[in-house]
């Protein structure tokens, strides 16, 4: 049985690609990789295009190996991955929309990001001007006595991002949910082209607002891998501090919001206060509540002072004092448990097949956490546990977040205790030749992948893959058989990103 390394060595190895290998392979090797994905031996980490070439990032979880294989397709056609491995379907539809690459044998040829509104076709390769004329989108059918449709969105009833949900329901029970996304598509990968590093990291930090730290972190690590740039030790540790503060704020917000969607406003009110405490501490420490534009290629743009350190310590003490009572209340309120236990169950098999990251995967028995599985500094010298549960319901996704709040509190303490002194930034060198880099960073929602090619100090091509790509489809599966009224609860427990997905 061919290993991932052997598969790469059979192809034509790309020299300047770090830290994991990339090889241009032939069709036979591509099809072999697809069959291994379908068999479940490997996991799909991402699939993206360029003009006349398609790339696929693969993870071998047992060996913690990552590789990228690329298939040249001068005629714009490549064998479909999605035909055998469904997690690739939406990625292939997006690649078709942006690059005009068509996946031969694909089970779903409907456009995905392209809503016929751009005035162009294939905007990132070969760009053809077309009239802006929206055609109806054919939703998948659900047939049966009394089955009716409920259309929701793109403008939703709350303060949330836009997307369309088409429910087919039989009475109160959801028979099928189909999502239609792409409403917030901003063309970020198009804007990345020819951007210098500072402009590019600014864009990366605005892919998904709740993960601005994680995206800037992943982009910077990918750029530094490409340039073989070592980051000062203090910056390495400050980055982890920022990432854990972001995780803490988001998890606290989510725990409250999930309870709120089960109409239990008390926990929501208290969790919102705790979240605000984190944001205020971040503002004092780093000058921005969401910690935007702090991680940059070469280090961080702002150091942590004494006042900031104290603000973070005070916030930590406050959360340690108040959060346990909320967790106890969650655990002991029967009416709340009645809503969350056994609701929106995601099976372990599906979580594994889709390589679901973050709390969604870890609540359904998939132990992957990029900080552990594909460890990057300083996490190699920090103590933390990766909580895993097997129930796969809303309740399990709440508990993973609760445990991760505790872990982040501990990580923040460790980082503050051991933060090395020294500079926080080095200037990235400008390299004339093309260099490719890749990074996988654990955001609060799951693993964020950034792949890029730099040339003459500018971005030639950059692909950013949000964890939501592999989580959104699972929400469709988890809601099946639940009542319509439980959808907000299930949706919030997933908390997938619209903007991160739509790009």
């Amino acid at each position, binding site marked *: 049985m061919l290993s991932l390394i052997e598969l790469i060595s059979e192809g034509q190895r790309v020299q300047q690609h770090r830290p994991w290998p990339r090889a241009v392979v032939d069709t036979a090797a591509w099809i072999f990789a697809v069959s291994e994905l379908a068999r479940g031996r490997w996991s799909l980490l991402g699939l993206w295009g360029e003009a006349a070439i398609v790339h696929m990032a693969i993870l071998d979880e047992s060996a913690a190996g990552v590789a990228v294989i690329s298939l040249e397709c001068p005629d714009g056609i490549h064998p479909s991955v999605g035909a055998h491995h469904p997690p690739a379907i939406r990625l292939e539809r997006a690649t078709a929309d942006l690059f005009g690459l068509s996946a031969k044998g694909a089970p779903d040829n409907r456009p995905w990001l392209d809503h016929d509104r*751009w005035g162009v076709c294939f905007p990132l390769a070969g760009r053809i001007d077309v009239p802006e004329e929206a055609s109806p989108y054919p939703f998948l059918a659900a047939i049966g006595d009394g089955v009716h449709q409920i259309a929701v969105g793109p403008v939703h009833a709350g303060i949330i*991002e836009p997307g369309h949900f088409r429910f087919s329901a039989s009475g109160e029970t959801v028979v099928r949910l189909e999502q239609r996304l792409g409403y917030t598509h901003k063309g970020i990968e198009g804007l990345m082209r020819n951007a210098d590093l500072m402009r590019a990291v600014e864009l990366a930090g605005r892919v998904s607002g709740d993960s601005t730290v994680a995206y800037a972190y992943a982009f910077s690590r990918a750029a530094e891998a490409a340039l073989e740039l070592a980051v000062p030790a203090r910056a390495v540790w400050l980055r982890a501090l920022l990432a854990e503060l972001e995780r803490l704020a988001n998890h606290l917000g989510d725990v409250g919001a999930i309870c709120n969607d089960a109409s239990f406003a008390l926990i929501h009110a208290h969790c919102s206060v705790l979240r605000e405490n984190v944001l205020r501490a971040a503002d004092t420490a780093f000058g921005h509540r969401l910690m935007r534009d702090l991680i940059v290629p070469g280090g961080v743009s702002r150091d942590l002072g004494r006042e900031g350190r104290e603000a973070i310590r005070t916030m930590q003490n406050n959360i340690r004092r108040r959060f346990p009572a909320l967790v106890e209340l969650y655990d002991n309120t029967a009416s709340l448990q009645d809503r969350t236990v056994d609701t929106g169950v995601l099976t372990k098999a599906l979580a594994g097949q889709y390589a679901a990251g973050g709390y969604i995967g870890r609540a359904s028995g998939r132990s992957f956490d990029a900080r552990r599985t594909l460890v990057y500094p300083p996490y190699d010298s920090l103590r933390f546990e990766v909580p895993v549960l097997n129930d796969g319901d809303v309740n399990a996704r709440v508990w993973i977040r609760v445990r991760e709040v505790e872990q982040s509190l501990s990580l923040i303490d460790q980082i503050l205790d051991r933060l090395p002194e020294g500079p926080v930034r080095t200037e990235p060198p400008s390299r004339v030749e093309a260099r490719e880099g890749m990074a996988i960073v654990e955001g609060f929602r799951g693993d964020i992948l950034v792949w890029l090619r730099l040339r003459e100090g500018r971005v030639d091509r950059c692909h950013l893959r949000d964890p939501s790509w592999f989580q959104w489809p699972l929400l469709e599966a988890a809601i099946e058989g639940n009542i319509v009224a439980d959808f907000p609860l299930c949706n919030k427990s997933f908390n997938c990103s619209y903007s991160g997905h739509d790009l």
Partner: protein
Amino acid sequence: MRKLLFQSLLQSPLTEPAPSPDQAAIRELATAVGSAARQRLGKSLSIREVDAGSCNGCELEIHALNNAYYDVERFGIRFVASPRHADVLMVTGPVTKNMREALERTYHATPGPKWVIAVGDCARDGGCFAGSYAVAGGVAQIIPVDLHIPGCPPPPLAMLRGLLALLDAAAEGAGSA
């Protein structure tokens, strides 16, 4: 739960532990916004938020307006689920081409008198996303805008300040029908 509720009753409010000068400013600002709204509208102010393509950063900070520190609902300012119930549309993001029609339809579904606040740097002119094939531009390029609140994202206090500025302008008869 009883224990937690009793604690909340008997202990000083959660807002107390960090009485920064901002606390007073927030209170003053929110009160002023509330009374200005009542003068103009004879009732509370209902806001409908529309994400026209933002990165979600502005939404996070708009959410924060509802937490115990800012608690805008104390002053009769509340977020509503339908544009039919709204006096104000708070629109975020560069308007993506894929969201343009939805934004226009939401605007037309809002009864007059109505105001539009464009929230965040992207909502002014597309911000860092301007010039993309997928972006239509700032909010004002799609629907009439009464006020712009800058920031990336604007902190909750800046949003409250923005609401006040809008109501002052409205009191001078600048509202659109």
